[in-house]
């Protein structure tokens, strides 16, 4: 039976915002998992932070926890520790998890908490009207950086690989089928799964053309258990907005290894 995932709430994202595509991908992903009896709908706990992405809690008829800005990750770990039968999925933004809550992101990867984090990465603070954030390129002009951003952005995939995430992937919001598959792979993975979802902000930083020309899926035979190969693969990709870039932007699973999870270890000892 197809679960009823829609709610009474009216969607208030900008018309044409790729957040809606992420929502569609997620609904498809969990509908299939529920229909195939791989997941019970009541056992999903979906978390969100604060930012445009965070509205997603109101648009899916499943258990949800809309945390404070940047603080969904510790709450996710708490929930997973408290009930290991739950599948814990977090929606976050680049401002949410790479600015405000970056310490939690790194530590969740370090402790390999068995939760999934999907970052709606639009390289800008959108809900607060377009300021530069941790993913904005140097030179980005927003209302708080009228002369151009003077900082270099993070490379989130490299950061997460270094921190110890056991599943690191990237997808593009406009590719609904591809995003759905990556979400399902992340959910199936035991351990901390990090998915960077490129989500162009059509109002404040429209990168749709930039990415459409550059994205490609990693070949099937990309070695997923090789940290060095993964780091090499992700380290050359400059974010949109950097001058004179011509690199392609690979999508797919860069890294996936099995390690004991934080929650397993917590219940193993004492």
């Amino acid at each position: 039976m197809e679960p009823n995932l829609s709610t009474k709430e009216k969607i208030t994202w900008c018309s044409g915002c790729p957040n809606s595509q992420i929502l569609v991908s997620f609904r498809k992903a969990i509908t299939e998992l529920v229909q195939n009896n791989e997941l019970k709908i009541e056992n999903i706990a979906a978390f969100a932070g604060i930012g445009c992405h965070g509205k997603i809690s109101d648009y899916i008829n499943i258990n949800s926890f809309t945390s404070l800005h940047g603080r969904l990750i510790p709450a996710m770990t708490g929930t997973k520790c408290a009930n290991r039968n739950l599948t814990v999925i977090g929606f976050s933004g680049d401002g949410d998890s790479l600015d405000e809550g970056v310490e939690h992101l790194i530590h969740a990867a370090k402790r390999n908490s068995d939760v999934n984090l999907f970052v709606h990465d639009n390289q800008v603070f959108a809900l607060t009207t377009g300021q530069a954030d941790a993913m904005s390129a140097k030179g980005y002009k927003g209302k708080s950086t009228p002369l151009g951003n003077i900082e270099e952005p993070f490379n989130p995939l490299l950061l997460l690989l270094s921190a110890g995430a056991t599943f690191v992937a990237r997808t593009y919001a406009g590719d609904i089928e591809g995003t759905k598959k990556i979400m399902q792979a992340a959910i199936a993975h035991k351990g901390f799964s990090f998915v960077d979802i490129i989500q162009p902000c059509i109002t404040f930083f429209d990168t749709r053309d930039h990415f459409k020309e550059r994205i490609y899926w990693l070949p099937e035979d990309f070695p997923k258990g090789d940290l060095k190969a993964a780091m090499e693969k992700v380290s050359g990709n400059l974010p949109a907005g950097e001058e004179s870039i011509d690199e392609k932007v690979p999508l797919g699973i860069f890294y996936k290894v099995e390690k004991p999870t934080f929650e397993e270890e917590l219940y193993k000892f004492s």
Partner: protein
Amino acid sequence: MNTDKNNVFTIGVGGAAGEGVKKTGINIASFLRDAGFDIYLSFEYPSLIRGGHNFARLSFSKDRVWNDHSKLDVMVSLNDESAELHKNEMKPDTLQLSGLPMPEITQRIQNILKEKNIEPGEPKGVLIDGNTAFSRGLMAAGLDFYISYPMTPATSILHYLASKQTPDGLKVIQPENEISAINMALGCVYAGKRAAVGSAGGGFALMQEAFSFAGMAELPLVVAIAQRQAPATGVPTRSSQSDLRFAIHAGHGEFPRIVLAPGDSEESFWAGADALNFAWKFQIPVIVLLDKILSEHMMTSIFDENSVVIARSETMVFPGTLDKVVKVTSYEHDEEGFTVDKPENVKKMVDKRFAKTANIEAEMNNRETIKIYGDKSSENVIVFWGSTKGAVLEAAKYFNKEVKMVQILWVEPFPKERVLEELSKAKKIICVETNHNSQLASLIREKTGIEISEKILKYDSSPFDPEDLAKEINERIKE
């Protein structure tokens, strides 16, 4: 004032950090406890690991001892400088022991007791500090998770509970910082587990936004604040009662909470048990205010874990329940958990949360929110809260006049009728606190309209000495 009338003996143990001062103090205290004495054991130490001067001081008596005394009957020196550092606390007949092994020390103490014809009796309870008693209270009320980042003087809660973990029961997590700790705890609560966090005032300052979230989302949570001398990093290993206002007003926005202020180990046990039960009964955050003195000093206490009844909310539902969708959010929301911003919906939800106040106050009225000691009819009244209880009750042994002593255990909501009843007929009221702004006196004025003009305040981070405090109070109640 005649101190000789009182059969309280005091032993000091001094040495360098790392030389086993605390252990020696506990050993002597345990031996005396087994011999049926009532004991109060304090520790003083600087914020370092090795070297520096550590001091344990224990006062004991056949009668109740509420606080340690400065003047020493016996001084045990583990190094050369100890006796010199404490020479102002020596009396002409102070027995000085140095370089002796433990059995020899206890033998010498036994000899003194024999000389003074003091007979041993039956043990009067366990020797326990406030943090451990508080932790045992939490456990008795069904604690599932304690999540904390180390910070003196709250750290021993973390250590004690970490040592009590079981494969499928209590779990203790030390995450990356205090912000993570409290948000992780809220995640545990969302999944239906009973959680507590603890820190000093500085760590709790970092938790403010999430504390407010617990209020907004009606998530039951217990927070222990073990106060220390502040502001900022302050004096990490010294005490203070300067976070009373901070706790009452904690978190941005308005939402109901309970703030309990136990005054000794036994009350700390009950504060732990009650706090967890109140949090879950009313779906609110509950704060327990401890302080360095209460947290770390040990005293003989009696409490029974088996008498704690676990209270639960009858309406809460958790993720994993068939056909139920459980939505929690930090945004204002409707009763299903969807975001709202229409003024009528916002007001409705604020009113819904504050509708609990009546139930909380009804609960409060069935509880021992204040305690009265001394002469209940006296027009001289001393009012206090928290660990100052020990100093005041011990000082009372040296008062020249009968006085009424009022201890306040609930600071939010405030038991205003009861306080009013006890204070309104007083001719003289003296408020005793270890802070600069006399926070309790200001709270009493705010809630009852009673202005307390006489205050004895200490904010140098050191504890009151009962005999000094008695001298000060005697001076003020002379007329």
